[in-house]
């Protein structure tokens, strides 16, 4: 502390200004094209110093309370700040430098190289066969010698245990599912595997399959994770070249927005996805330190190494990270390839989203408690810090909840939670906030826009907090919960998880009322009241956004369409071919924009043939389509559905829509752009109101519906 705080607040205020100028300069230089890591390090060191200085001041001079409750509140708030700072420092360390692995190809391997055999495993529990069919068809089309890879559908929904279930409905459904999937696999030439009992969830399913297969490498794909044709071509060479590589992980590229994005931000095609920050930045940073880990899917693992640890680990419900940790501890290496070669589905509803995130949070806390990766002797120090960073992140519900409630403790109950003068806030707190923002902007600015993290954390914190407490009380109790995927919503509905946010929202409003009272009644603490009111306003804005996001919008399309840059030809029964742009595309349909002077006769119901060049297949494909809709708001645009396709055409449609990595790359790059804090703030402020009022209207409608039905009965 002596090194950080040798001066009074006024002098601190004076020196912090040049430090912030230096920080800003280094931040700008860090983005320069020919910049080395030196400016990134400079930003982290100077920003870290400012944060350390802030924490030292907080620890040394502000931790006291007028009574026991105030003291507890003060300590909790400080604990939350320390936690945030630790995450901040760990994030800085992990992301100080990132690595982009070179693109390898099987074709570039020395001639005569014996390629390893590959088992592609697609575990499934309750997913629709239609969803699985797309994944299986895409897997079949991966570019790799056909005799060197086998595809397995690992069905956990049709196990002997479920077929023998006491509930006849469940047993019948399981029996039917097994039959349907066996038929599907037979049709596609895929091996169907199931097992006697549903033990250890996904890890158990995969381990069971490992016992029945012999491939050198194992590819794990979730049921909704559709690979592009080059997936094996780009990943397998790493195993050929390096015997100590146990894992090659690739990003999970989502083709639909998550519920918060869809309901509130509505920026799926304009704004980086929520998981972009992890897959495009953090995993690359972890890879630099040799600590990138298995994410459950879109990865290739070496069987030999897996068998050393008894297959996929199942002590926790995040078997992926746990397995990677065990193999890292044995000295094996992981590789992360930042190239989207697997397209998946994000959860469609807020409930599904929370189910997924609670599982991740619980699993990571289980690893923290049961495995203690930061103490593992087999890991290098950067690897330990990498795991610590990845795991500790999931404790954010503690800090986020405290940050939400702390201003209310002051405004409503008058607890002195933050003992500082306005001068000290200017000298320590404000520079710390600025430095933190600058660092976060440098590390994640292109992948995470301002206030987005806060919104996502607020929406998860209450549920995850309860889930984490349960883990801490009983670390071995949590059970694997499958994230529902591919759900549809026929009408707008308020999420059943909304009520805690109503309570917080009302409390925040009450906090404003008390704050105004405090402003008038306690002139001596007016400075602090204003600061806390600003803080409360920030919480209010995020809660507004959260409530807006809790109104689930309609989601009728089961197979999301992604933008496309392809051009094609449409040809009717009698007419001449019409050139068109393919605006978006999925395995079941597309949106086409024909050239303006040839749109006559292109009406709904019309059957056509769409032909285009398929980059993944390296040939032209022709697909039968039916026009479902026609709009003329931006020129003539046709909504078409693929209909009456042969098995080969179905394969072609899947390859056309999901097989091209370049499409995903283009889409990712298009939405990766930095925005300034004020742009982000303005955008957020402009976005939150409409969903919020729509939410209110839905509430009113829901209240008035029973009344109307009551009146009807009367």
């Amino acid at each position: 502390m002596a090194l950080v705080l040798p001066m009074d607040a006024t002098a601190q205020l004076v020196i912090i200004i040049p430090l912030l100028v230096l920080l800003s300069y280094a931040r700008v230089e860090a983005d320069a094209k020919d910049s080395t890591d030196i400016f990134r390090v400079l930003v982290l060191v100077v920003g870290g110093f400012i944060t350390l200085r802030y924490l030292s001041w907080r620890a040394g001079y502000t931790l006291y309370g007028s009574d026991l409750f105030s003291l507890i509140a003060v300590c909790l708030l400080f604990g939350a700040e320390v936690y945030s700072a630790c995450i901040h420092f760990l994030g800085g360390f992990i992301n100080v430098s990132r690595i982009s692995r070179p693109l390898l190809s099987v074709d570039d391997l020395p001639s005569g190289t014996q390629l390893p055999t590959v088992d592609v495993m697609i575990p499934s529990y309750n997913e629709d066969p239609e969803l699985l069919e797309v994944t299986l068809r895409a897997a079949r089309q991966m570019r790799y010698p056909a005799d060197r890879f086998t595809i397995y559908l690992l069905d956990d929904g049709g196990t002997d245990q479920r077929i023998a279930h006491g509930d006849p409905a469940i047993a019948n459904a399981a029996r039917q599912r097994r039959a349907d999937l066996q038929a599907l696999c037979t049709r596609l030439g895929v091996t169907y595997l199931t097992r006697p009992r549903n033990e250890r969830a996904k890890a158990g399913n995969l381990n069971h399959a490992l016992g029945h297969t012999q491939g050198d490498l194992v590819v794990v794909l979730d049921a909704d994770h559709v690979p592009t044709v080059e997936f094996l071509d780009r990943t397998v060479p790493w195993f050929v070249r390096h015997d100590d590589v146990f894992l090659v992980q690739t990003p999970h590229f989502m083709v639909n927005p998550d519920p918060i994005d869809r309901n509130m931000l509505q920026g799926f095609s304009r704004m980086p996805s929520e998981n972009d920050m992890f897959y495009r930045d953090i995993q690359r940073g972890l890879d630099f330190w040799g600590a990138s880990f298995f994410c459950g899917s879109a990865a290739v693992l070496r069987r030999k190494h897996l068998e050393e640890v008894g297959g996929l680990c199942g002590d926790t419900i995040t078997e992926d990270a746990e397995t990677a940790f065990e193999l890292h501890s044995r000295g094996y290496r992981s590789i992360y390839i930042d190239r989207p070669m697997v397209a998946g589905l994000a959860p469609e509803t807020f409930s599904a989203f929370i189910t997924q995130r609670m599982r991740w949070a619980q699993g990571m806390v289980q690893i923290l408690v049961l495995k203690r990766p930061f103490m593992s002797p087999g890991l290098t120090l950067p690897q330990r810090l990498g795991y610590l960073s990845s795991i500790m992140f999931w404790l954010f519900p503690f800090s986020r909840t405290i940050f939400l409630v702390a201003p209310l403790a002051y405004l409503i109950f008058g607890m002195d939670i933050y003992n500082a003068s306005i001068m000290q806030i200017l000298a320590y707190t404000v520079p710390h906030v600025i430095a933190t923002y600058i660092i976060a902007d440098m590390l994640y600015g292109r992948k995470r826009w301002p206030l987005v993290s806060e919104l996502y954390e607020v929406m998860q914190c209450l549920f995850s907090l309860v889930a984490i407490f349960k883990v801490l009380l009983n670390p071995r109790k949590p059970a694997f919960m499958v994230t529902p995927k591919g759900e549809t919503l026929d009408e707008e509905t308020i999420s059943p998880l909304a009520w805690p946010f109503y309570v917080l929202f009302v409390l925040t409003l009450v906090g404003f009322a008390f704050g105004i009272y405090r402003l008038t009644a306690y002139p001596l603490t007016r400075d602090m009241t204003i600061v806390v009111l600003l803080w409360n306003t920030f919480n209010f804005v995020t809660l507004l956004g959260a409530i807006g996001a809790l109104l689930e919008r309609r989601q009728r399309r089961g197979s999301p369409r992604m933008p496309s840059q392809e051009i094609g030809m449409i040809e009717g029964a009698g007419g001449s071919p019409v050139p068109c742009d393919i605006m978006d595309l999925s395995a079941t349909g597309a949106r086409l924009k024909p050239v303006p002077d040839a749109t006559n006769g292109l009406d709904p119901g019309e059957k056509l043939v769409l032909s285009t060049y398929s980059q993944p297949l390296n040939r032209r494909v022709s697909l039968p389509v039916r026009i479902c809709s026609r709009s003329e708001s931006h020129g003539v645009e046709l909504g078409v559905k693929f209909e009456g396709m042969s098995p080969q055409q179905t394969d072609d449609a899947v390859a056309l829509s999901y097989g091209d990595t370049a499409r995903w790359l283009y889409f990712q790059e298009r939405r990766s752009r930095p925005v300034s804090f004020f742009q982000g703030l303005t955008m957020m402020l402009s976005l939150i109101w409409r969903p919020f009022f729509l939410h209110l209207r839905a509430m009113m409608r829901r209240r008035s519906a029973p009344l109307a039905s009551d009146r009807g009965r009367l």
Partner: protein
Amino acid sequence: MKPLFTQLRARLICCLALLIFLTGPVQAQSLERDSMRLSSFTPQAGPVRLTDVASAVDLFIPVSGRVTMTDARIELRFVHSIALLAERSFLLVRMNDITIAQIPIDPLQPQATARFMIPDDLWQSGFNHLSIGVIQHYTDRCEDSLAPELWTELDLHQSQLEFSLTPKDGVLTLSHLDHLFGPGIGAFGRVTLLSAGTDDAMRGMVLPLVAQSLALRRRFMPLLIDHVEWNDPAKRDDIPGPLVLVATAAHLEDLLGQEAPAVKGPTLNISRTPVVTDENDQVIMPSRVQLIVSGRTADEVLEAARVLSIMDDALNPVPTLTVVGRHQTPAHLAPLARLVLHPEQTYRFADLGLPTQSLRGFGAHGAGLEVRLPGDFYTHDSAQVELLLDLSYGAGMGPGSVINIFLNGDFVHGRLLDEGHGAMFRRYRIVLPARRFMPGNNRIDFEFMLRPEVVGGECAGVDGRHLMAQLMGSSTIQLPNFGSASSQPNLGLFGNTGFPFNSEQGAARFDLLVAHQAQFGPALTLLGRITQVAGAVHDGWHLHGNLEALPKSSRSIVVAPTSALPEPLFEGWSVAFGRVTRWPYAAINDVRSTTQPPGGGFAAWLVNSLGLRPVPEYGGAFDDMLRGNVSQVSGLGPMGGLSLMSNPLQGASGAVLVVTAEDEARLTARIDTLIQPQVWSQLHGGLMLWQDMDTPVVSAQVVDRFEIGDSSDWLLLRLWLSNNPWYWLVLVVVGALLVVVSASWLLLRRRRSLEMQD
């Protein structure tokens, strides 16, 4: 006619001769007639305004036990409102709670002078309470007791107390020392120290102790000290006024002969000198008070002087005492440690001299808590002082009833007393930034305004006698951790606390250096004044008859004429006295940033725009200021010069106070003036020039700053860096760059290694 005229003239001469004969011995007893302004007895400056229906001002008149006050009269000048009702308005004067005068007010004559006597038997030794109050009304009917017409203004500066003093006879004992040298009227304001022998080491330590001891008994009143080297027995007889003889037993025997008291150890003795007559038995020097500080050896003399500095006079009703032992635990602390508050301690108000205060009746009431902090009190800017108040107020408080709390005159907290049935608070918490407390004396004022409930209807007001509030002595003040560091020069702090020339550590050594022994007297006079403001004697002063010890002394006071001051002493300083005078003229020195944040510019704008107030005493950054000085051959003329600065001869941590004038006579006169409250209270900045009490004082803040501290290097560093933040900035940036270069190199290595692997 001529014989008659001659006869009458002869009778007249005989009468005059008889009168002279009769009054001669009486004159020797000195029936003195004197007068003092009433404003001398109150710290309040300017006229005193008495408002409302009834109010009063309290004066405390100290009278020495050495004299009897007789024939005292007061001439009181006042002005009052012309709206007052003559029949019901009057001044009321009370002396020691006895009413001695009721002075009617005539609205037709708003300016008036009242004269009245104070009965002799009402005077007592010590402080006498004179209360001058007013009862005033402007109507016979319903009256607003706070009406603006209700005022009377007392001009205490022009009002006089005239009196006669008669010295008391009787055997002198050591317990009389408190009266003889006390602050009261009639006590000695001048004393002569006679030191015998050639033991400079003994004299150098004893004389400062004696001077401090006597000055401390004078409390706030100046004590002029003369010094005489006493090697001739007859020399004592030429000196008027009280004497203090400092000598070993052997020297006393040599110089006093039979008159010398028996000395069997460290001895204090008080007596009267014999009357000195000439060969015609004419009294040429009356009997004088004589205090002897002696011992068989030099160490015993020093021990006697130490006991003189700590003893309670009232416990020694004997003319002589011999010290046989002295014990103090812990031994390393100086008496000052008992007076100042200590870090991380909690003090009850009652222990700080503020017992439970019961405040009754309508109007404003106040209670003050004195908080004395060390002169080098310094703490971090987040430290807080916590007040936990036990207070209560009774039922029936009306609108406008409040308690306001002030720290050194600045409002810090307020609360409405608005519970109709009264309220009681236990541990009512008020947190004050410790930086708002100043080094030295601080005062926390609790001002209660008690008003009754408003009752409707004419003349239906409640008189407010039922109003009551209490501030309990069990209330506490808790101090944070603090250390010892101070930004200098700060003559204001020096004038209030004596810092940097006092210490809580007994081992702290200070040097009092004079160019020649003839300046011992003025130097000791100055030391006496420093002791008075410090409130405690420090047993670490060394008096030197030359300036040779200056390079070795970390804290020193130099009293010398300008011609004797060494030029290297002022090296690097904006001020210089001597053959060449150097002045930091205001036109080329900008000292305003002592009240602005360091660095000026944007930070200054930011801090000022937000209304934030840095603490000026802790300095600012002076790097950007205009600095300069002019060296000239001119001199001080009739002025005395005083400057506090770092001691370049000793090193960075030394501090030296230079007090000088053109010649020895002026130096003595200027120091006699300097210690007068009117001049001393104007000490400010880093440089002061003064002449006499009627000439305006010139003081200036010099741009040269230095930091001194005793205990904590960390605090000193903090203080220094707070004044020079750019050094810290450079250190941080250099450190950051080193880390950046190292980390970047390591990252580069790692990246290359990964690329090699791929």
